[in-house]
């Protein structure tokens, strides 16, 4: 078992233990409050509508996110249809309009989990939610000057991922597999996307320690399998045998690269990717991909909804939590050939039943700004 997974499981155990203590303590506290009589000044919501606002379900990543949201709703004893889906189809305008519409419909009795599609859209969404007295947790997109603690309890939390570090680790695995020499090509995401930029930076950071490896080219493949297939074919024309390793910004790109190599009868080219989709993990276990990074979107989607919901019904008071409980990084797990099958059995074949009250357990520390 790799260090990463060992650490992760160890961390989980400790967190679970802490959580049990904390909840026992919390229950005692709540009972004491109840015994003492007066209700809280600001009444929490009862039975709020739970909604997830996201791009669409065609994308396997967002499909995982929302399945986590559904699992959370089911953990409350409701059917998974009780989760309201607001689908923005990549439009920030629609994202904001949907939020305003559901705020009007529910009269502010709402617990909202949202990726606002782009960073500038986070502020109007949060302001609309706060004004209506509803509760919101955001994922991925927000501007650096927007913070949950500036909105009292209504802006519950923000979770994001920093991909630069993990992408650098996969790059090192790749560069070692290449024997520290030769040429590497990078196929990236949509050029302006933050994760695409960070993942390329990760590769560049790693390359500093490998002076004999040349970065031959870095082209956007737009997170798309077919585009990646085309770009890789063209790379093969331009560089031919000079390419001795491929760094992919995500798994869907890696699939296209693998097929482009297969068409040429090239086998055993070192490739690393990102995201930890089930198919990619399978390919890692077969050593066709050397490493991928799992960011546990299922947990991310569930816990974002859980945070908004529990803040809304008053299970905890966000403004009393430290800042690192309100802006934090999501989990990352490196998956390599030795532990891929075990990882797959534990996380993908049967999705683990998460404790949706363990809000911060698997998270990865406070968000830092450059």
């Amino acid at each position, binding site marked *: 078992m790799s260090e990463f997974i060992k650490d992760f499981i160890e961390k989980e155990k400790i967190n679970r233990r802490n959580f049990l203590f904390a909840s026992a303590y919390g229950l005692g506290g709540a009972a004491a409050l109840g015994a003492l009589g007066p209700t809280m000044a600001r009444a929490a919501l009862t039975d709020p509508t739970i909604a997830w606002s996201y791009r669409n379900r065609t994308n396997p990543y967002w499909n995982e996110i929302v399945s986590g949201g559904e699992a959370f709703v089911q953990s409350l004893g409701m059917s998974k249809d009780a989760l309201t889906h607001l689908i923005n189809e990549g439009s920030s305008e629609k994202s904001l309009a949907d939020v305003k519409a559901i705020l009007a419909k529910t009269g502010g009795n709402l617990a909202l989990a949202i990726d606002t599609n782009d960073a500038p859209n986070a502020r109007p969404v949060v302001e609309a939610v706060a004004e209506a007295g509803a509760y919101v947790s955001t994922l991925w997109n927000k501007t650096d000057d927007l913070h949950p603690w500036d909105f009292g309890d209504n802006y519950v939390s923000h979770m994001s991922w920093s991909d630069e570090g993990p992408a650098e680790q996969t790059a090192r695995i790749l560069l070692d597999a290449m024997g520290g020499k030769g040429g590497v090509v990078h196929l990236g995401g949509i050029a302006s996307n933050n994760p695409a930029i960070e993942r390329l930076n990760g590769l560049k950071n790693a390359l500093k320690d490998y002076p004999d490896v040349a970065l031959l080219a870095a082209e956007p493949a737009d997170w798309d399998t077919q585009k990646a297939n*085309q770009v890789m074919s*063209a790379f093969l024309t331009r560089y031919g045998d000079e390419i001795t390793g491929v760094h992919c910004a995500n798994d869907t790109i890696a699939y296209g690269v693998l097929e482009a190599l297969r068409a040429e009868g090239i086998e055993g080219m070192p490739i690393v990717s990102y995201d930890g989709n089930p198919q990619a993990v399978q390919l890692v276990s077969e050593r066709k991909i050397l490493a991928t990074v799992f960011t546990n979107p299922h947990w991310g989607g569930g816990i974002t909804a859980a945070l908004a919901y529990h803040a809304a019904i008053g299970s905890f008071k966000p403004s009393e939590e430290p800042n690192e409980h309100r802006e934090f990084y999501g989990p990352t797990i490196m998956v390599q050939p030795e532990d891929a099958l075990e990882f797959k059995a534990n996380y993908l074949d049967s999705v683990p039943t998460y404790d949706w009250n363990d809000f911060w357990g698997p998270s990865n520390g406070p968000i830092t700004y450059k």
Partner: protein
Amino acid sequence: MAITQTTTRAGISRDTLVKWAPLLVLLVLCAFFAVMEPRFLSTRNFARILIAATPTLMVAIGVTFIIIMGSIDLSMEGAVSVCAVAFAYCFLWLGGTLASWAWLAIPFAMLVGAVLGFVNGLIHVKLKIPSFMASLAMGFVGTGLAMVMTGGDRIRIEDELFRALLTERIFGFPLMVYVAGLFLLIAWFIQTRTTLGRNFYAVGGGEDLAVASGLNVARVRIMGFTLAGVFFAVGALLAVGRIGIAETATGNNFMFLSITAVVVGGTALWGGIGGVWNTLVGVLIVFVIGNGMVVIGLPGYVQDAVLGLLVILAVILSTDRKSISFVK
């Protein structure tokens, strides 16, 4: 003497230019990329370009028939996704290898494409909804349907026999290129040797005249959309053959690529002009640019800009704008 020469030259430049401009553009592009990077001209690279181009070629041929009629079909992305997913499920359900009854999944997928196209045409003709709106809406329905069928998952087709489309090569080109060539010839046959093909031109060249001469235009239109659906399905099959994955995203990008290719190839958007050979040249132009840009090392975002400029250039070249009184 001088006057005669000028008229002759003018005559040649107008007609010949319109007819041969797309091919000329293709040759100039190839020459340009070859000078910049000699490896562009290798057989292996042409094989790579053709592998990338064949699914789009099939889709573009389908939509060529519709554009010749003066209509447009924008349902390709949804249609390709549905056909790909329907094929994959049917293929795996029937045994998962071409050596079993699973080969029936291929005609099944083409049937699914035909049905989608038929419904598309029916909505357009019977409900009198402009083809632009009807087909765009049908495309969304298709994407949604594929989404419901897969639940967002991707289906892998691992069968070595089916994947031979990509992995088996004859004279350096994989089988899928020959399959696409066969369907190109079929399309050419339909266009030139069948009543249906000639009726497409009749409808596109002047619908009033066609109606006045007793042509059942509604029937021609519905058959056109059905035929386009079949070609979308063939495109879907080749797309699955190329990357071994069927998913909702299989249809992504086909709209932009195929419409661009048809227009760049010299088929006029108002109908009656062009044909499948134009589309072949158009598709090759689009994919030679895509490949060549990476091969000579230009950044990817320049590609879209170049394609956009080429569309405008193609429309300027392929139409006699003096004969059009106004443009909507």
